[in-house]
């Protein structure tokens, strides 16, 4: 009976998973087709003939583009911005969740309120500000402004509110100050939330493609999304190249997720609160 239930459960999960993964398989298979087969009617799913031409175009390509350099830029920008977000959002969220000060409610309302403003309004003003700062055409423009968004603060505040207070209160009685409590108690307890925020921030930056159009001019400072869009061509219908670019860009992001999600699993249950 138990085994039956377990296998039914696996069956359901696998069914879901196939729905999710099917289109992704199609993407990977398309990246391994010839252009002719990729646009065949009726379409094929598994390539009749596997070829790496799509990937070849990306690397030696039409323009001898510095794909590895774009990759490095994407890594640097996404990592740096993620760290910056973790730092500034966690401290601000701690103050908003745990400290008492005048104007806290309105401040939180304003921060969350800015989430409601469409980012297109901020685009041109931010471009002008970044120009003043002398950050145009440099990675600074891809790292710093994006860390100011309210998402991380709102996210961590909600998590901090849900944390049990007992440990903090005990520490306060022992005379620990807020910095100590924040670093030694709240941050370790929040590992699932911090890991989740890190993954989401990293991906947000990794896939950003509108802001770089306005602030990056030299191909040397391109990240992957604008770079790959150059390689994929404008008028020619070359689906294998597009899909190869997508596979290439998503593999590192997926690895980051798999690594980071270990911290999500090993959350509170293993940090000493159990029992």
């Amino acid at each position: 009976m138990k085994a039956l239930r377990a296998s039914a459960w696996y069956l359901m999960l696998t069914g879901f998973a196939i729905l999710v993964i099917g289109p992704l398989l199609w993407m990977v298979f398309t990246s391994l087709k010839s252009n002719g087969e990729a646009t065949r009617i009726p379409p094929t799913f598994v390539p009749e003939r596997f070829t790496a031409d799509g990937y070849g175009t990306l690397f030696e390509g039409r323009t001898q583009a510095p794909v590895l350099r774009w990759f490095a830029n994407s890594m640097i920008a996404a990592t740096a911005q993620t760290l910056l977000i973790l730092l500034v959002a966690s401290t601000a969220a701690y103050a908003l969740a745990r400290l008492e000060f005048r104007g806290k409610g309105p401040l939180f309302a304003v921060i969350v309120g800015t989430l409601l403003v469409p980012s297109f309004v901020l685009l041109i003003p931010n471009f002008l500000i970044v120009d003043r700062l002398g950050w145009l055409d440099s990675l600074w423009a891809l790292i710093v402004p994006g860390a100011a968004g309210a998402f991380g603060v709102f996210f961590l505040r909600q998590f901090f509110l849900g944390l049990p207070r007992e440990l903090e209160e005990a520490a306060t009685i022992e005379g620990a100050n807020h910095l100590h409590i924040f670093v030694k108690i709240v941050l370790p307890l929040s590992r699932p939330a911090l890991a989740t925020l890190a993954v989401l921030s990293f991906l947000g930056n990794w896939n950003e493609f509108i802001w770089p159009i306005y602030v990056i001019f030299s191909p040397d400072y391109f990240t992957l999304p604008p770079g790959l869009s150059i390689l994929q061509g404008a008028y020619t219908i070359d689906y294998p190249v597009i899909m190869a670019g997508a596979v290439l860009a998503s593999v590192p992001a997926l690895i980051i997720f798999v690594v980071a999600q270990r911290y999500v699993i090993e959350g509170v249950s293993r940090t000493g609160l159990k029992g």
Partner: protein
Amino acid sequence: MAVSSSHNLTRRGLLALGAGAGSALLLSACGGGGGPAGPAGPSKAASAAPTTYTGPKVDLAFWNGFTGGDGPFMKKLVERFNGEHPNIKVTMNVYQWADYYAKVPAAVTAGQGPDVGIMHVDSVPTNAARQVIVPLDDLAASLSLTESDFSPPVWKAGVYRNARYAIPLDVHPLGMFYNKAVVAEAGLDPDKPPRTGADYLAALEELKKAGIQGHWATPFPFTGTFQFGSLLHQFGGTLFSADAATATFAQEPGVKALSWLVDLITKGYSPKNVGQDADLIALKNGKAAYNWNGIWTINTLNEAEGLEWGVAPLPVIGDQPAAWAGSHQFVVFKQRARDDDKLAAAKVFINWISQHSIEWAKGGQVPARKTIREGAEFKALEHQSVIGSQIDHLYFLPPVPGIPDASAQIDTAVNQAILLKKEPAAALGEAAAKADKILEQNRKKYGA
């Protein structure tokens, strides 16, 4: 009617340009003073012949959107130019066109713009008005370039407020691509593509009998809107009045044109709900016989293994031949600090590429320059020259800033009609009313 008088001035200015170097220089001075982005005074470089550059070594940044099969051809040309000009080093950067048009104004504002670039002819007036690019009258004058060196509509399209802002590189018209095997299967002669509306419909009928929907009518701008515009001009209409004061695409020729496209579906020559690119993919797969597409399609079809295809001028469905075309044009960007050496070098570069544009034509283009277009080397390019034969029947949008905003309304009307959501006349009428409001606001905005 400020717009119409400025248009007349433009025409007169062009005539003067043809009349002699003296008046051309005068025009250049006028353009410089009157155009919003005019240089402070007459340029020193203007007097030097732009065929040679003898100054100190300069670097030129050259930006464009040649991301497709055309990119390598331009890159090779640039490399050759660099080899022949030891004191000029041109560096070419390529972006997606859509990104390019957002990026260039941003870079120019920040003082980090490139020196030379390419723009589509429809974008030239807007960028001139927004002071992204600078007038090039002195270049045209010192090269003695005139309308007769190009084709009149292509050449005129680069003028905004009496000043020339762009030098044509190429034109890329629509052509009728066809799948020879499919046509032959239906018992039609693959070497005699239909030339008239009656022939075309007869061919589609034969194909229908053979179970082929011959012409997939796409509701999307690439190239549904272009097909509509071509047909409209064939029926004797224009999209906008010559002074761009009003939208005229909803008049009778427009309704005829759009109805003709919609009828392809109702008569069973086209499936409903054609998706983006599906029309061309259908042609490649033998599911369609004809596809009216841009000249760049040559590259796509050349890459398709084992496909027998041909290309012909668009059939004359209406009363006269006409076809949509775009045109890539050279522009020079505004800089914070003027550098006469760079300007002079830029002119040498533009002139050299223009003279060598036969190499560019091989990448799937029709050269704008008449001498090259009529040369034996271009005639030898089978597909390009067939499409290029339409050169005297091409249409362009009136050169006023913001015209793409107004013409975008046409996309909506074409989409609604071809997806059978609205009658052609109703869809076009609504779009034209909106386009009129846009044109009015543009006149205010750009101070025409």
